[in-house]
């Protein structure tokens, strides 16, 4: 009987251990999930205020005196509360529309970052006198927070209140276009060669080992490659979308090769044999049968590879894409920046007003990436064939 009670106590102990183990496994996944929730909540909390922008209703006078000193165009007490970005544009406005000369217009104008921070109840460097003016404006309904559309149609700026992501978005589009242009065809061709044509010899094995190693090389090393080869040897302009696109293309290549190979190898051999049986040449087998059947897989892999490239920053910093780019680039050799690099440069500035914009930029970037990945998953689920 003593033996029996001992055995029972052992079983009890073992179940305690089992529960502990199970609990810690669940705990691990809970930590990971709650990190994600905390992280997303934190970014949103930091960034959502940037959706709004403070504007002040004021009179703008257009005459010779105000053209010389644009601070005079608005009431004196307001001149230090409005964005210098707007005041600077007054001469250009008059040039574009000469009828404005000699008139006084009452309109809403973007306030500067300090006022904006004050209105959002965040730390700011306003003096008490200025705060009094703002409170007076608030009482008169002459200050308001509106939708921050400028964030999407302005380029970068040294003034946080008028800094936007337009130039970075255009840069990202250029870079991604170039990345896709180089990496997808070359990647798919390599995969087709390795999977369908390559004989099993040392050359093929070298390429395979090499691709696996390339996939594991830190991204920053690709930046060094881009700097040393594309920029210093081939004379590609520094900071250009071309330099960034080529660098990211090489970085994305292994991802596309590996996923395409998986897609190709999931096409069963009897399809190939059937096509060969009716006299198709090796290339016709691939072009008419294997490639169309594996297209969804190739597409999914390419999207995932490009999404990865889209979030990449380190190699682009090395090829100089962290430059200050207020205007959207118009060509692939113009200096450009991309969204992640813009996020980096903004987060490196000491001005607090940039923080919320950085976070909003992150939200934009994350949404785009999420959509890309969702598209990839949808393609996979919709077209994936079970053989």
């Amino acid at each position, binding site marked *: 009987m003593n033996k029996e009670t001992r055995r029972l106590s052992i079983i009890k102990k073992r*179940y305690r*251990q*089992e529960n*502990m*183990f199970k609990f*810690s*496994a669940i*705990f*691990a*996944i809970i*930590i*990971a*999930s709650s*990190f*994600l929730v905390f992280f997303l909540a934190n970014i949103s909390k*930091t960034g959502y205020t940037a959706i709004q922008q403070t504007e002040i209703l004021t009179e703008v006078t257009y005459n010779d005196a105000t053209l010389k000193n644009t601070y005079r165009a608005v009431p004196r007490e307001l001149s230090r509360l409005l964005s210098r970005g707007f005041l600077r544009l007054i001469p250009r406005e008059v040039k574009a529309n000469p009828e404005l000369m000699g008139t006084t217009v009452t309109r809403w104008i973007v306030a500067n970052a300090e006022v904006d921070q004050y209105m959002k109840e965040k730390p700011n460097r306003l003096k008490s006198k200025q705060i009094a003016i703002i409170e007076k404006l608030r009482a008169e309904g002459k200050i308001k927070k509106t939708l921050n559309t400028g964030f999407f149609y302005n380029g970068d700026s040294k003034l946080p209140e008028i800094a936007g992501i337009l130039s970075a978005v255009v840069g990202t589009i250029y870079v991604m276009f170039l990345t896709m242009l180089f990496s997808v065809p*070359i990647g798919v*061709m*390599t995969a087709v*060669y390795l999977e369908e044509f390559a004989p099993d010899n040392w050359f093929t094995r070298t*390429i395979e080992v*090499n691709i*696996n*190693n*390339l996939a*594991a*090389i*830190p991204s*920053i090393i690709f930046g*060094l*490659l881009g700097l*040393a080869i594309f920029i210093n040897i*081939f*004379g590609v302009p520094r900071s250009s979308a071309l330099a960034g696109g080529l660098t990211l293309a*090489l970085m994305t290549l*292994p991802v596309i090769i590996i996923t395409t190979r998986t897609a190709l190898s999931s096409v069963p051999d009897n399809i190939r044999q059937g096509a060969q049986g009716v006299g198709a*040449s*090796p*290339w016709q087998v691939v072009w008419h049968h294997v490639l169309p059947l594996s297209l969804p897989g190739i597409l999914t892999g390419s999207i995932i590879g490009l*999404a*990865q490239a*889209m*979030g*990449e*920053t*380190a190699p682009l*910093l*090395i090829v*100089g894409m962290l430059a200050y780019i207020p205007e959207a680039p118009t060509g*692939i050799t113009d200096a450009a920046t991309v969204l*992640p690099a813009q*996020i*980096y440069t903004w*987060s*490196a500035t000491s001005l607090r007003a940039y*923080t919320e914009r950085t*976070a909003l930029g*992150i939200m934009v*970037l*994350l949404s785009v990436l999420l959509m890309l990945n969702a598209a990839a998953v949808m393609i996979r689920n919709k077209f994936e064939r079970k053989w």
Partner: protein
Amino acid sequence: MLKVLLYFFIGVLPLCYMAFYLGRKKARTGELESGERFHSRPAQYGWYTVIWMAVPSLVISFIFTILGSSKIFAVPYSMHISTLLVLAAGGLWFSLKNIGSDLKARNFIENTIKVMLVTASLVSIITTIGIVISILFESMKFFSHVNFFDFITGTKWSPDTAFLEGAGRDGSSASKPEFGSVPIFAGTFMVTLIALFVAVPIGLLSAIFMSEYATPKMRGLAKPILEILAGIPTVVYGFFAAITVSPLVVQTAEMLGFEADYTNALSPGLVMGIMIIPFVSSLSDDVINAIPQNLREGSLALGMTRSETMKHVIIPAALPGIISAVLLALSRAIGETMIVVMAAGLRPNLTWNPLEGMTTVTVRIVDALTGDQSFDSLETLSAFGLAFVLLMVTLILNIVSSVVIRKFRKQYD
């Protein structure tokens, strides 16, 4: 960009179509006149003509462009164009002349395609060679100034004097620049170690949860969460580490009576740990699932609980795979750049205290290459020296990891 596209659409494409049309027509009329069937289909003769006309001239044009942009030899524009025209016309003439009943146009096309495919797969080899050469070459320059042994064992990193030299100031009055990389590698080591302390237990236990305890529904929820963690750009993690985690760490340390820098090694380490959880968990999940079911049943049939089966049978059997997963995660952490650039310090600091600011290899590389230094300055070159070591370490980790996992897979195939 637009110009190139324009040339392509109004120049190259119509020319190609013309060649195709001529080749196909010649084959068709040939078949009709002679009454015999040619070796290949008429359209294939059309493609044959296109290849002969376009490929040589495009290749030459590409080579000329490369020569020009790399400033080896700038081919004059007139010469470039005339060469192209001669080549294209010659190719067209030659191919049209050759078309006849015995010409194996289909085989020619297939071979051309194969050559193109092989060329494409050479790009990845050339990339590797490019990486090795560019980094080796530049780091050689660096190591001709700085003794490799001093670089590996030195404990003082003060390139500032090198900066003065690079900026044109006389360096003789200043002290000699020192490039002892130990403090930098120590920083990388510290951050990586913290990351592994976070990622290995959480990642492994998550994998165990998903393969052993989760219902399909929970698995369907947990897997995307981990995948999202893997898909967040590193610059975003970096922002989070710098803006949120660092102040938290500093406050917590203060509460506990410690002193912490805002550029402490702990915050980037923690965040990096979260970042590499998916690497550990997804690979471990794979290997745990690769363990044959009968091993699991064998243990359960002996009256083992799930955790006992896990601890005594599955994990020991899956250990090589798990080790290889950890090595991959380690290599990823060592090469990770943005998190440390944004949240770790710039100052090399040899310490065991993770609350102090430390710098890492990747931070120094970025710092050296994004400054306003000339490309040949010693500090710029030092980035390549560091990158060389980084490349070697990650390559070795990757190779060891893939050897281990291959052995593991062989065992259970």
